[in-house]
């Protein structure tokens, strides 16, 4: 498998509280080009798991292998996209997208060309000389996407990237992310607490529960793209996810409907 997570645990030691298990013995295999959603309530360790895959943090026990190599530090091959975008407010859109290209050995001209190409890809060419604070949340996240894609990583790690957006913008950004994923053939691991978002985007949904954070189950979403958010199949999978979280009323009540 492309990404394989074996018995990965992460424990923290908190003063006064003792040892806290943020993540307990996670096993997960992800294939190349797969779209995986990590879904669960806050405190289920989904962001912790993403940080481990990114290499910002190391598991206390177990390991994570990507393409056969154990992850020990961050890499340009897997770029993380954050909820608050992580754009540098003192740089324009263009210079933000160029940031990742600056440590590559390419000419200034080539760097600019690549950056402009990816800004075009996310449809922000008209805004390339704007500063991030002049853009809406959705546009800022597009800039972050362009910046991530520009360094041509194999893997995109998204940590609740749409969490700060309103519902409408959120759905159009979901469409956008799906389009970019299909065009660029990346492996995406996407953290969210929004069930419909997970059903819309994921090939497989990894359901996580809290205290201690662990993987409860994995649900396959076997539908073709682009998915219909109000279709019967869609709602069926959504119901299954609800049931996994025990958020759905028990079956007897359904007879009354």
């Amino acid at each position, binding site marked *: 498998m492309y990404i394989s997570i074996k018995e990965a645990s992460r424990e923290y030691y908190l003063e006064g509280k003792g040892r806290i298990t943020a993540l307990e013995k996670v096993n997960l295999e992800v294939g190349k080009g797969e779209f995986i959603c990590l879904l669960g309530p806050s405190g289920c360790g989904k962001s912790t798991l993403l940080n481990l895959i*990114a290499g910002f943090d190391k598991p206390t026990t177990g390991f994570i292998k990507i393409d056969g190599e154990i992850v020990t530090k961050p890499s340009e091959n897997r*770029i993380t996209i*954050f909820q*608050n975008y992580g754009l540098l*407010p*003192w740089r324009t859109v263009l210079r933000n997208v160029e*940031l990742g290209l600056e*440590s590559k050995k390419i000419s200034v001209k080539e760097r600019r060309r690549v950056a402009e190409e990816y800004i075009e890809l996310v449809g922000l060419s008209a805004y390339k000389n704007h*500063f991030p*604070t002049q853009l809406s949340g959705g546009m800022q996240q597009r800039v972050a996407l362009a910046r991530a894609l520009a360094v041509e990583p194999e893997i995109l790690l998204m940590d609740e990237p749409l969490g700060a957006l309103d519902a409408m913008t959120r759905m159009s950004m979901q469409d956008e992310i799906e389009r970019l994923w299909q065009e660029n053939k990346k492996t995406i691991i996407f953290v969210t607490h929004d069930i419909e978002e997970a059903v819309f985007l994921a090939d497989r949904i990894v359901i996580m529960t809290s205290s201690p954070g662990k993987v409860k189950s994995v649900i396959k979403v076997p539908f073709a793209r682009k998915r219909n958010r109000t279709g019967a199949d869609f709602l069926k999978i959504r119901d299954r996810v609800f049931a996994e979280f025990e958020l759905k009323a028990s079956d007897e009540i359904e007879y009354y409907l």
Partner: protein
Amino acid sequence: MIKMDLLKKTVKVVISIFVLIGIWELVVLTGRYEQSLLPSPAGVLTGMAELIKDGALLTHFKVSLVRFLIGYLAAVITGITLGLMLGWNKSVWSFIDPVVQVLRPVSPIAWFPFIVLWFGIGDAPAVVTIFIAGFYPILLSTVSGVGNVDTVYLKVADNFGIRQPQLLFKIILPAAFPLIANSLHIALGSAWVFLVAGEMVGAQSGLGFMIIDARNSLRSDLVLAGIIFIGISGLLLDRLIKILESGIKRQWGVSIEVRN
């Protein structure tokens, strides 16, 4: 609208100045004080004219400004450089921090005996005084600015393979910049305050000396004239750096209220 605001503001400034001068004149007229104890507004005005006309003001002002710029720029460069290094190196800073905390509240004036012993008289004492006054606010703000760089920026840099020294210039310095710019503004004010004090000890020229010189010849009108000039030039410097500060911040694209 903007024109109206400017007009209103100017009217207010003019009124407040005239009221102040009116009260002053009233006190002088009713009190019949000795001219050297409380000079009249008219006397001070002729004093100011005298200082401008015979070129004394310009000469002293130029000397003061050069001393000020040397002391202040030295404080800016060392404050920011040390601040960046110490802010990044938290373990070293934890040793230096207590020393700085003890030294910082000490007025530069308290160092005068040593300053004169070590640096003699002339330009050096004033420059050193200004340096001390400006150094601490800049150092402390830079250290805290570096320490408070949003971790998401550091993660992004780490992710894109940006290492030192690029990290310092591409991420840390600009991220800490709003705090640093603010301290440059504060340091400018306190450095200007201590410029005058510095020139009152060892110097034979400058605005501070001009006041001491006038006192020695019992010209209180010139003392007050000098004080007014110092106030006005301090105000102008403050406005100048305010414009610079907001200009640079705008170019940085930093606006705190929009960031969440």
